[in-house]
């Protein structure tokens, strides 16, 4: 796993974008810690500037119950919003296998957020971008209105498949 790029916001911003993603890896791994400046809690993703052909299905728990939902949208996780405990950010990871392949792009997302024991949510999600284009850019934004606050951060990693010359696969 190699770092492609790390970003940390010096001021509030509508989105965090990774562009010109190298096409030399096999999978992408995105780690991010963000907080919206609005009442909205959710984060969404887009690929190559494309906001169409997304779907997802997820499992969530809020400390008292668990549930599941699905939608044709770009939601990837939840965060503390502007009314939550100060200085708390949502934490997320997204794994995107075979991001350069000429096939639909599936991704797995994990997300946690809490409000100093008053509110909490954990999400695991299966997503799909039903597009065969290689992913050359990706962007995170608030699902709804608002910006990410200062100190929100994201790191994009590349993972390259291959062989160590010893392990055999058959």
């Amino acid at each position, binding site marked *: 796993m190699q770092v492609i790029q790390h970003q940390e916001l010096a001021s509030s911003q509508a989105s965090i974008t990774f562009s010109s993603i190298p096409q030399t890896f096999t999978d992408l791994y995105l780690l991010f810690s963000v907080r919206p400046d609005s009442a909205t809690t959710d984060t969404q993703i887009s690929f190559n500037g494309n906001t169409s052909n997304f779907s997802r*299905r997820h499992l969530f728990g809020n400390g008292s119950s668990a549930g599941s939902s699905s939608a044709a949208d770009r939601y990837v996780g939840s965060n503390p919003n502007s009314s939550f405990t100060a200085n708390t950010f949502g934490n997320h990871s997204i794994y995107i296998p075979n991001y350069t392949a000429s096939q639909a792009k599936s991704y797995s997302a994990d997300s946690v957020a809490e409000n100093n024991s008053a509110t909490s949510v954990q999400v695991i999600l299966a997503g799909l971008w039903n597009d065969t284009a290689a992913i050359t850019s990706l962007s995170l934004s608030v699902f709804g209105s608002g910006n990410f606050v200062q100190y929100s951060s994201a790191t994009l990693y590349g993972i390259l498949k291959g062989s160590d010359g010893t392990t055999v696969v058959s």
Partner: protein
Amino acid sequence: MPTNTYTALATVTLGGSDAEVVFSNIGSGYRDLILVIQAKSSTGNPAVVARFNSDTGTNYPYVRMTGNGSSAASASITTDTFLNIAAAFGINTSGNGNIIAQIMDYSATDKHKPVLVRNGDAGLGVEAIAGRWASTSAITSVTVFNTGSISFATGSTFSLYGVIA
């Protein structure tokens, strides 16, 4: 140059259908293994399972939770002859799902081997599994297959990585 923390051990993209994929001769030079699968089935959405070192004993307990888009559920198995790494959501004919399994301390000889799995397909559901191979043997092979005797289709990809502590 940053240190590469995921070392590629082996990978295969199936050129034809195959009933199982075996990673063997796995060295002991890492702390953990990461198995990434993006596969299609020849038909249906069979459960995908794994065995370590070809162990067919009842040495694979696990607990799992699932969400199918409308409801959540959980189940556990105390003894099984394989580790379920995708009960119903990780593989189907579309190939739009994926499976990521983390095998911790795989080469240790003083502990059982914990395994954490995430799998899902946006059209079917999402699943998390915590399992264990009840053996103190170091893992030298991983066999991936499905319980319905259904083949993995052409184009399915299986990649194994080692993570250095």
